[in-house]
């Protein structure tokens, strides 16, 4: 049997697939989206403490030819688990983004990535379903019958023509879940911008004024990030935004969405849980629009 098949499509896709390393977070994959150094990947591959526009020493990108470059975070959206990096390299081979709204259940798809550090591994299957997953909120996922492993995160899921229709992000019940490529395109167009607070948080129960509520304990504050400028410290517990109680991490992530420079008032407790303090945090959103 000889035809332009999986092999050729995979080979083209491999040239646009990179490996993203972010120090402590381990390895993931990335998609070259523009020849002058723009790489799309998952926010969870990049890790939580880098702020957009700030150099992060641990972040590096390895190209298929083996060369390696330091990466800088340009934009991200943690709600959609997307990040855009830039590396100082030219003449890269960008992947072609397809229209994920046209993708149909049953279509053949192919995932390329670096599962467990093995570079350029290919897996194929069909689109099992497109839509919500129970327990994963209202967002739309491309659910594919492809075998993914840690390290595939951030890599391309392409249709039979080799156009990228999604970004492989997680595994649920053996199905590969990918963020639709149209969400990646929106991030590139600057529409999914999300400011970074520059904190690592973890949900904890807090008792303030006799009532149990959700708090987000600050575990780490990024150097040079917005939270550090506002004098937030590790150990502070965030309890509200603009006077409204936090009910989930999504409330915080949602409040950070938008591409205007603005001030966000965050309520938190430090030490005495009955004393709720408030801080004004200036949010910067670097202009990103990859034409």
């Amino acid at each position, binding site marked *: 049997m000889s035809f332009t*098949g999986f092999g050729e499509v995979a080979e083209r896709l491999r040239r646009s697939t990179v490996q993203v390393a972010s120090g402590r977070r381990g390895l993931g994959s990335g998609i070259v989206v523009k020849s002058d150094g723009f790489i799309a990947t998952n926010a969870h591959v990049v890790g939580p403490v880098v702020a957009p526009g700030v150099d992060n020493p641990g972040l590096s990108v390895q190209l298929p030819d083996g060369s390696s470059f330091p990466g800088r975070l340009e934009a991200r959206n943690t709600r959609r688990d997307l990040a855009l990096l830039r590396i100082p390299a030219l003449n890269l081979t960008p992947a072609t983004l397809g229209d994920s709204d046209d993708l149909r*259940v*049953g279509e*053949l798809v192919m995932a390329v990535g670096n599962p467990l550090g093995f570079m350029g591994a290919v897996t194929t299957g069909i689109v099992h379903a497109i839509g919500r997953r129970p327990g994963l909120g209202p967002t739309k996922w491309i*659910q594919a019958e492809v075998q993914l492993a840690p390290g595939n995160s951030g890599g391309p899921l392409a249709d*039979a023509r080799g156009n990228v229709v999604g970004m492989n992000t997680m595994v649920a019940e053996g199905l590969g879940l990918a963020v639709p490529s149209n969400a990646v395109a929106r991030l590139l167009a600057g529409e999914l911008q999300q400011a970074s607070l520059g904190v690592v948080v973890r949900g904890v129960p807090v008792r303030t004024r006799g009532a149990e509520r959700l708090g987000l304990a600050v575990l780490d504050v990024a150097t040079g990030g917005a939270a550090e400028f506002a004098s937030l410290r590790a150990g502070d517990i965030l309890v509200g935004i603009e006077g409204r109680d936090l009910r989930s991490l999504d409330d915080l992530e949602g409040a950070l969405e938008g591409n205007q420079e603005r001030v966000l008032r965050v309520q938190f407790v430090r030490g005495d849980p009955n004393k709720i303090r408030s801080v004004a945090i200036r949010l910067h959103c670097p202009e990103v629009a990859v034409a």
Partner: protein
Amino acid sequence: MENAMVSLSNELAKLVERFQPDVVAVHARPHYPSSGVLWRPDIIVTADHTVRREEDIQVTLSDGRTVDAALVGRDPGSDVAALRVKDLGAPIAHPTTEARGSDPVKTGELALVLGRSPDSGPNAGLGIISAVSGPWRTWRGGRLDHYIRLDATLFPNSSGGMVVDCRGQILGIATSALSRIAGLAIPASSVNRVMDGLLDKGYVARGYFGIGVQPVAVPEALREKLSLPNQSGVMVVSIEPGGPADRAGVVLGDIVVGLGDTSLEGIEDLQSFSDSGAIGKPVKARLIRAGAAAEVMITVGERPAR
């Protein structure tokens, strides 16, 4: 770039589009809905093991509506259950669900498993037919016309879904409950046969003799003396008082070696006979009683509901 992959991809997506209007999600157990197929007008088939309650059943249709369904009947033996939804109408993609008759299913053919999830709509799994054989008795006691093993992954909501071949013919209903090692397709012909019984009575009637039996070897000397073809038969070890065999005068210790014109070598032959629609008819049972041949006429009864 048009290539063989693109055409295959298109064909698969078209098959999903064509058949998905007849595939529903079935809500009849906690946590995980299963799938079902609109099989005949107003009638949905699903995998019986996914029906964990007999009332308060709903189905989610291809247009997104969730409507009430009534349980028509169920046959755990073949893992088939039938639901009725008022005014649902006839299947769209397959007005009649005929078995793929003249042309048997072959190992290695591609097969799609189509299901529906209330969260994400239609879903599809692809694999090959990994094994096929002739008539087969399930561990639940039902008889299927073929054993059709799938290598597609069956997810919790795949059972009850439609198995379609690459030519767009319905092979059957997917189930994960009839084999420990793989998903199976309950053949369309078996579904049709079971469905007839379910629509008629709400269950599949099975023949009944009212005896408990133990397979035993027929000694060589006895075989020669009675000129029997049998290597073995089944010895009657219990008799239901007032049951068909009791009324016919069968006694403990009788060895049944034939029913009608066929010889009976073991329990499976007895079970096959019980399936065969002999209910209400007299059948000649050939026995060995006290070392001599004997015959009794038994009127086959219907197995009582448990």
